[in-house]
């Protein structure tokens, strides 16, 4: 059988087209990866890509987006220092003036020099627009606090007077925190979400996205260039590229080899040893406001008994968990004794120190027997024919959490409790089991700040029920006046001193009610190459380590 010439040429044509296609595919991909390696370029590894850049929308809600692009490009009224203090940012001319009373009023004096990247001044109208967008705009992530605002006086363009209808104690996060002041002159009357979600060309901060939307190369990087019209400390670097390196081990390699100059990787065992191998690298371990804890479902047997809950805490060797899980990765760590983290020393109260840090089995025996429990022949506590057995859940595939669970299971077994591990995927845990209360104990992280306060996760008003469509973040499901009173007060108390008293009282109440077992603050590692960059580099647990990127310089 002969293959005809016609067929042969058809064949060659096909191969040729395929080759062309492949070359095209590789060159277009290569082109997009072809970053401009101009002098004056700083490369930083970003562990997560933001889902969208419409910061006040629900599509956002990712820290990395805020750290890498949000705070660099948009103004906030108050900014948070590494020590956790709220101070006025460069947008304000001084401290905002708070009038406690009826009604609560805050006066923001806007810096006369503050302008947007197109030289339009930042005015009180921008405050008003931001407030109106958040309360009435499309797809808003968090309206808390803004809904308590009655009006904003914009008669003086450089003075915004915010009047509240209800007192709101977390006011320092308004026009800041995880939202920003938006440019009304560019967005008024337009579709804010559509304009911002894929990147935007305007700026009110030291940086702007290079080329607007094209500064965010999806799946690859975010590129920032200085905002020439920034009135504050102008950036000292020509271009900053945040590269998405989602894999921790590769991130560490990239910074170790100098491919990137800085990173903020998730801690993992051996990471610090790796980083120490390069003498040019400096790293800072910090403990932020995110903490890990065991959460007990007070509506599930046997957690409905206070004595059992307390016994569980006494049975848990929290120090061992810190030693096995946290110390191997960052060489340090300590047991967390409250749900407010010690990063806020003015509010922190080590309420859980009453339980010690290691296991106290005699206390367990004391409490359980007093509650009517008896150990069966299998060494498991039993009462009224029911054994003290329950399940613990966490996000499947998260190694540190799985190890923590297995440690806890062993510890509790020694104390007479039978724990079964049943891990669903993250979306099932957070989407179904948590809200619907289909768990006895769960291991996951929460944020421990006084602002927003812990009422969201501990007050009885926030228990998800069938009636409210399973909405609410208090998955421990305990209704307790001892907890509700101080924490509800915290949300409305404006007087600093009174507030501090309530916060401390609230922490003690949480320790007494034992609905949750705080373990440790999650560590962060901030690493940078001292041979490549200089400046006041330090981690900021709230705003991320790049909060003062405009003060960094290349060596």
């Amino acid at each position, binding site marked *: 059988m002969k293959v005809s010439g016609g067929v042969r040429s058809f064949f060659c044509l096909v191969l040729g087209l395929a080759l062309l296609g492949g070359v095209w595919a590789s060159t277009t991909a290569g082109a997009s990866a*072809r970053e401009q390696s101009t002098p004056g370029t700083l490369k930083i590894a970003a562990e997560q890509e933001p889902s969208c850049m419409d910061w006040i929308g629900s599509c956002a809600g990712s820290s990395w987006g805020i750290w890498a692009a949000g705070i660099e490009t948009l103004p906030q009224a108050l900014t948070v220092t590494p020590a956790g203090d709220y101070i006025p940012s460069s947008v304000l001319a001084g401290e905002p003036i708070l009038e406690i009373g009826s009604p609560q009023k805050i006066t923001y004096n806007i810096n006369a020099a503050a302008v947007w990247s197109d030289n339009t001044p930042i005015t009180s109208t921008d405050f008003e627009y931001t407030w109106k967008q958040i309360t009435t705009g499309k797809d808003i992530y968090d309206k808390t606090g803004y809904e308590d605002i009655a009006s904003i006086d914009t008669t003086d363009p450089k003075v915004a007077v915010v009047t509240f209808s209800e007192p709101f104690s977390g006011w320092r996060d308004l026009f800041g925190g995880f939202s920003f002041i938006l440019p009304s002159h560019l967005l008024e009357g337009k579709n804010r979400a559509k304009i911002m979600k894929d990147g935007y060309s305007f700026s009110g901060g030291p940086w702007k996205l290079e080329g607007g939307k094209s500064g965010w190369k999806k799946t690859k990087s975010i590129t920032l260039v200085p905002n020439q019209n920034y009135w504050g400390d102008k950036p000292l670097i020509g271009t900053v590229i945040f590269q998405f*390196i989602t894999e921790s*081990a590769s991130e560490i390699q990239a910074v170790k080899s100098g491919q990137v100059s800085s990173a903020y990787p998730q801690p993992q065992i051996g990471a610090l040893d790796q980083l120490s191998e390069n003498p040019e690298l400096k790293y800072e371990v910090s403990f932020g406001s995110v903490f890990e804890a065991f959460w007990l479902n007070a509506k599930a047997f046997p957690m409905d008994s206070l004595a059992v809950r307390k016994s569980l805490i006494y049975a848990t060797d929290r120090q061992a968990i810190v030693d096995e899980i946290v110390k191997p990765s960052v060489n340090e760590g300590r047991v967390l004794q409250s749900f407010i983290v010690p990063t806020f020393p003015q509010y922190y109260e080590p309420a859980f120190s009453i339980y010690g840090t290691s296991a106290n089995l005699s206390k367990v025996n004391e409490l359980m027997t007093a509650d009517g429990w008896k150990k069966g022949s299998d060494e498991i506590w039993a009462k009224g024919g029911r054994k003290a057995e329950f399940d613990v859940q966490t996000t499947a595939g998260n190694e540190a959490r799985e190890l923590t669970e297995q440690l806890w299971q062993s510890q509790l077994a020694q104390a007479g409790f039978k724990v079964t591990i049943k891990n669903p995927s*993250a979306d099932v845990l957070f*989407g179904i089991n948590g809200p619907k209360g289909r768990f006895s104990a769960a291991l996951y992280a929460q944020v421990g700040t006084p602002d927003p306060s812990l009422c969201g996760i501990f007050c009885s008003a926030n228990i998800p029920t069938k009636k409210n469509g399973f909405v609410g973040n208090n998955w421990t499901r305990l209704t307790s006046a001892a907890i509700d009173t101080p924490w509800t007060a915290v949300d409305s108390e404006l007087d600093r001193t009174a507030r501090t008293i309530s916060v401390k009282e609230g922490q003690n109440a949480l320790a007494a009610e034992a609905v949750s077992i705080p373990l440790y603050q999650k560590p962060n590692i901030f690493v940078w190459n001292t041979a490549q960059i200089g400046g006041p580099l330090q981690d900021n647990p709230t705003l991320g380590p790049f909060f003062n990127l405009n003060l960094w310089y290349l060596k």
Partner: protein
Amino acid sequence: MTRYVGRRILAAIPVLLLASLLVFVLVRQFGADPARTRCQQSRDLKCLARTRVQLGLDRPLPVQYVDFMGDFVQGDWGTSERTDQSVAESIGIALGETAQLAFWGVAFSSVVAISVGVYSANKAYSPGDYFFTGLAFAGIAMPTFWFGLICINYLTFHLKELLNTNEVIFFSIPNATGHGAINGFRELALPVLVLSVQLVAGWSRYQRSSMLDELDSDYIRTARSKGLTRRRVVWKHGLRNSLGALVTVIAIDAGALFGGLIVTERVFSRPGMGTLFLNALGNGDSAVLIPWMIVTGVFIIIFNLFADILYGVLDPRVRVA
């Protein structure tokens, strides 16, 4: 021919529709609630209800499906339920990424597979042949995810230590810092290697078998008996005629790669179709998953069709009907 193509395409449409319906129902029933994922860390308790209405998740399932498919067939692929990013854009970017890996994987594997197959057929039952047969078996039994991690462990990290270089030689993640052909090679070397293990294993065996069939056939024996040298016979006739069958196999396997690189992309952190699928699945994002299924299905159908046509063209004995 046109009728045949047309009929195949028409037959494919109900299959794709059924697949999309299946995916939609499964994801809605058992997948995550994208509205919950978005509002998860918000202290605003009304965020969930607002977002559900916004995304249209409060409507009855049939309404959601029909509405979605209606827009889809008219070209409006909408936005991701989790990220609000344009689905068409996301799939486009992911396709480009996967196509790049698939192209180089197929190109490299074809060359290696043909060489190995021809050699094995030529020197059938020799020690060399047995060696390659063993490798092929190893390739088929190889767990992709494990092989990928092993390659990274030794060829990325250990090699760097061994040669005492500053940077790694072969990247284990997409190289975002460099440009040019050399960096492209360093970036694709390991993923292509991992991908080619399975492809080469199957293709080389097929090529060997199909070439042995050719070499055994009457016309070859006739040519040999007429005095043509073995070399001429093997290369000119045996290869060319058996190549046709292999090309169709390559086409079919290539078509399956667009949805079939989930593990490789995961291990090498490549933002292609596989990663897009895993993320969307974790988010319960049916707005991305349905177009994903349809696009990968279309690629499989197109490449299969192409393979059928090619085979018909190359081997007139097969009726393309």
